[in-house]
């Protein structure tokens, strides 16, 4: 009896504990879920991978910048320019103004630092820049931000004990701070010898090894001030010191968990981090200490009170959340593109990403991986690679495999500007157009004008492609590399095996099988899918482990000359076996004299034969942007692009256009894409509903919203 009773008591206790556990807890909302409130405007979004490290000194990728963008402020920034029409204020298309943000003044003070100590010549300009800060800059806890905070941050950025990933931003590339590299390498122990120091509480000086011209002739800010001088890191000294982690046993590397959680984060931007759960959710709310709230220039901006971002790895889940009004924007996946591309809420964002089909450049590795009855070496013939290029219907590919991207033909697309100040896009230049005509064998004289000829380019010519297949086959056969019965088997490598990669593969496979019809390789060509390379797919391709991959590049959209590095330097290029140090090019460069020195005079020229890498190094060295005028640099960029394209190791196929849907809840300032400011982002976004109105609106719609 007692045993039965004790069993009963145990059961009752268990049930009571469970019920109490759930119902007894306070009814407060869980983090991330806020009760809808009138007058509060929330931007709800999602990310497929949660950020982990929004530390300006160490962040790895764009994923980390999603928090950084809101908790930091630039020294200089772009603004939209408006025009007023019938009392309506509208954003002027593709125009911007450049303003001071955290800074109030930028001065070229090179002449103050002439001498051996800093290596500045007597008449040099653009070598030393003094930046004066606003005097009302504060961290989110109200602590004043001074010039010394910038100096401390740069010292930590270059701290050799940490080997921070972002250190090279200040000694490699266009921005080279005097002494930065030596300090980072530990060769120089005193930071005072680095060209980055405070001159008073609100001003610091940056001394450069290469000149930069950040002001226009009239003394106003050039876009280069924003482009080059906005990324100086800033960390909060006391918090950063606390966040340092000693090397673990067996290691000598110091690390830091600064800006990786709510407690280790300090904001000096318009928003501050108020909640963070790794891998799940973060919330940003207005930072009352931000200087902009009291500045008239920002009036009407930053209407968003709260940014709430959930980690949702599965697109279908995010799509359902969007339709239920739980998130305020989403990309249109190719699977739903036909239904939603025409939506009034759809908008399309151009991107500098150019996607390409990459073909293996190492003949040795091709040969090594051949098996009995199967040939790969034919890929080493330029005729065969060109045939594969001309056998690609790029329009059909992009229609079938992307939501809204367009056919790509060159290494650069419409987003690459060779002269940003003048708004000159590389692809719109005559030089850029001629490259495409020559690469795809389009005769300009057949079309009356260069524009007509470029517009006629499809990159698809089956007849010529088939002829090239036969030529390559005959050459390979004569060389004894392929027999009458051998098949050509190429391996298409991928990081993952999913619907998207399979779709891309199937499309290429079908197109190339069509290409082979009527050629010596009809029914003798195979493209094999292999997703075993995982995260090492790029390295595996470069080391010759397989034959075909799809890869591309984005970045440096305003410096196409520099961007060529991605295709020429074996450290980055997918065609890593192509020896660009010995591939020679004869070219005549204008604007420089016979010694190769910059004169910017059209009658001066320099004619030489040297390797592609040597030309590249000149283009980005002494003939770099800022020294040699952009119109003189342009022809060399074009000729290098043509050399790369006509090797046919890289077959451009896609110019990225992202299609997205915007919630009914809000709007961007403009839907005309501005190359500097995009659509204006959250800074300029406006809301049609506050949180309470939106909640009521959703209830009235019965849950799911129709965006068709």
């Amino acid at each position, binding site marked *: 009896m007692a045993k039965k009773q004790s069993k009963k008591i145990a059961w009752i206790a268990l049930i009571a504990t469970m019920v109490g556990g759930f119902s007894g807890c306070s009814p407060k909302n869980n983090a991330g879920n806020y009760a809808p409130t009138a007058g509060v405007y929330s931007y709800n979004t999602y990310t497929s991978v949660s950020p982990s490290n929004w530390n300006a000194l160490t962040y790895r990728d764009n994923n980390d910048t999603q928090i950084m963008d809101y908790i930091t402020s630039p020294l200089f920034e772009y603004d939209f320019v408006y025009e007023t029409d019938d009392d309506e204020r509208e954003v002027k298309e593709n125009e911007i103004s450049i303003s001071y943000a955290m800074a109030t003044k930028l001065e070229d003070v090179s002449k103050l630092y002439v001498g051996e100590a800093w290596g500045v010549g007597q008449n040099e300009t653009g070598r030393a820049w003094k930046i004066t800060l606003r005097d009302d800059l504060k961290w989110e806890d109200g602590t004043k931000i001074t010039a010394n905070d910038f100096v401390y941050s740069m010292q930590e950025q270059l701290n050799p004990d940490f080997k921070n990933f972002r250190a090279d931003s200040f000694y490699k590339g266009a921005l080279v701070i005097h002494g930065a590299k030596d300090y980072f390498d530990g060769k120089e122990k005193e930071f005072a010898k680095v060209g980055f120091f405070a001159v008073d509480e609100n001003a610091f000086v940056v001394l450069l090894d290469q000149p930069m011209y950040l002001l226009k002739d009239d003394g106003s800010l050039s876009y280069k001030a924003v482009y080059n001088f906005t990324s100086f890191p800033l960390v909060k000294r006391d918090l950063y010191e606390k966040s340092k982690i000693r090397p673990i046993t067996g290691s000598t590397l110091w690390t830091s968990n600064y800006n990786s959680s709510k407690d280790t984060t300090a904001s000096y931007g318009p928003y501050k981090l108020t909640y963070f759960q790794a891998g*799940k959710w973060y919330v940003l709310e207005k930072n009352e200490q931000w200087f902009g709230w009291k500045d008239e220039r920002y009036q009407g901006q930053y209407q968003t009170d709260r940014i709430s971002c*959930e980690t949702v790895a599965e697109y279908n889940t995010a799509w359902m959340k969007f339709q239920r009004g739980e998130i305020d924007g989403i990309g249109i996946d190719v699977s739903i593109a036909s239904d939603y591309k025409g939506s009034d809420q759809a908008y399309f964002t151009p991107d500098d990403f150019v996607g390409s089909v990459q073909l293996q450049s190492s003949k040795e590795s091709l040969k090594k991986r051949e098996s009995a009855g199967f040939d790969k070496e034919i890929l080493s013939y330029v005729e065969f690679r060109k045939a594969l290029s001309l056998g690609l219907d790029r329009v059909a590919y992009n229609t079938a495999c992307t939501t809204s991207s367009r056919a790509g033909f060159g290494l650069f697309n419409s987003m690459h500007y060779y002269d940003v100040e003048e708004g000159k896009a590389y692809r719109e230049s005559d030089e850029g157009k001629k490259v495409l005509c020559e690469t795809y064998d389009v005769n300009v004289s057949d079309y009356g004008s260069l524009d007509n000829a470029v517009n006629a380019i499809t990159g698809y010519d089956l007849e010529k492609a088939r002829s090239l297949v036969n030529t390559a086959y005959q050459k390979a056969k004569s060389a004894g590399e392929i027999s009458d019965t051998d098949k050509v088997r190429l391996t298409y490598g991928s990081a993952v095996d999913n619907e998207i990669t399979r779709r891309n593969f199937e499309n290429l496979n079908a197109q190339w099988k069509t290409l082979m019809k009527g050629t010596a390789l009809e029914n003798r060509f195979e493209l094999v899918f292999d997703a075993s390379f995982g995260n090492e797919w790029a390295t595996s391709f470069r080391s010759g482990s397989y034959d075909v991959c799809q890869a591309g590049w984005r970045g440096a959209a305003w410096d196409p000359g520099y961007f060529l590095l991605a295709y020429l330097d074996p450290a980055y290029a997918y065609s890593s076996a192509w020896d660009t140090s010995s591939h020679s090019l004869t070219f005549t460069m204008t604007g420089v004299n016979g010694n190769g020195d910059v004169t910017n005079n059209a009658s001066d020229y320099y004619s030489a034969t040297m390797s592609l890498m040597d030309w590249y190094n000149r283009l980005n060295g002494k003939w770099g942007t800022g020294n040699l005028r952009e119109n003189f640099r342009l022809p060399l960029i074009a000729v290098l692009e043509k050399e790369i394209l006509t090797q046919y190791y890289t077959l451009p196929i896609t110019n990225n256009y992202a299609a997205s849907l915007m919630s009914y809840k809000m709007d961007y300032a403009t839907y005309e894409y501005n190359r500097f400011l995009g659509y204006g982002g959250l800074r300029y976004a406006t809301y049609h509903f506050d949180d309470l109105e939106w909640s009521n609106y959703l209830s009235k719609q019965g849950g799911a919203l129709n965006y068709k």
Partner: protein
Amino acid sequence: MFRYIVKRIALAFLSFFIIMTTCFFLVKMLPLVVNATLGQDAEIAEAQIVARGYRDPILVQYVAYIRRILFEWDWGVGVNMPEYVGQGVWGVFIEKLPPTVLINVYSTLFAVPIGILLGIYSALKKNGWQDHLVSTLVMVFVSVPSYVTAFLVQYILCFKLGWLPLTMGAGTEYFTWTTFRSMLPAVFSLSFGSIAGYARFTRAELTEVLTSDYLELAKAKGLTKSQCVVRHALRNAMTPIIPSIIAEFIAVMSGSLIIEKIFSVPGVGRLYLTAITSLDYDFFMMLSAFYTFIGLLAGIVVDISYGFIDPRIRVGKR
């Protein structure tokens, strides 16, 4: 029994040591590649690798690792894992374990009684239409992968009907109604397969027991049908079922990669796979250690549980 348990634990520790050593050497033998994207300095990436000691001889690294674990209980920090760079691996794991465990515990609590009851009902109605119906449903749920069930649950219950949230709520207050409710879609998705499994297992065991001689004898002695089933048949049928529940209960620690992804559960499901693909040594070793430990523990617990469930089973006695 005591000697048996001590012996098993000692063997488990030996196995643990061998497995961990093997894991360490194998993962360290994989080529360590420097991946620098355009504009990134490959030299910095390489310098970091060297400073972390990853280029030292593997034996040197192994000794340092053992010292670090044994004397400092320092499992290291994430290096390459996209969401956990610079985070302490032990802290990340401990933070992420509760949602995984809770969802799987709720799923087990939900699935076990329903599965067993369905199995009993089906066995008692053997070859009747009820049995056929249950068996058909069981076959459907056993055959359909859990991610299909998850999509259906999410689409119907969460999206179309709006009864439950589409994703798990944020926060670490796990014992609130809001969080519990947000876990239900994942719990249901995990449960259907388990319910089907338990029902099938119970039906098979119980059917066999119900036709045995001793049960006929019990009936002949005048026991009612329910007395026969509850006191004798079910008890014996439970002998193989309960260890399977314990094994599943312990296995839940590893989480479900697909279910956690679909319902945005901040659990441990994706950690192991990501650690391997990212070549994040410290994460990989810590997770390997944990799952090896859990696996060995499960083996011991299940073996010992036989003796408690069925007194006829005695370890080490001849």
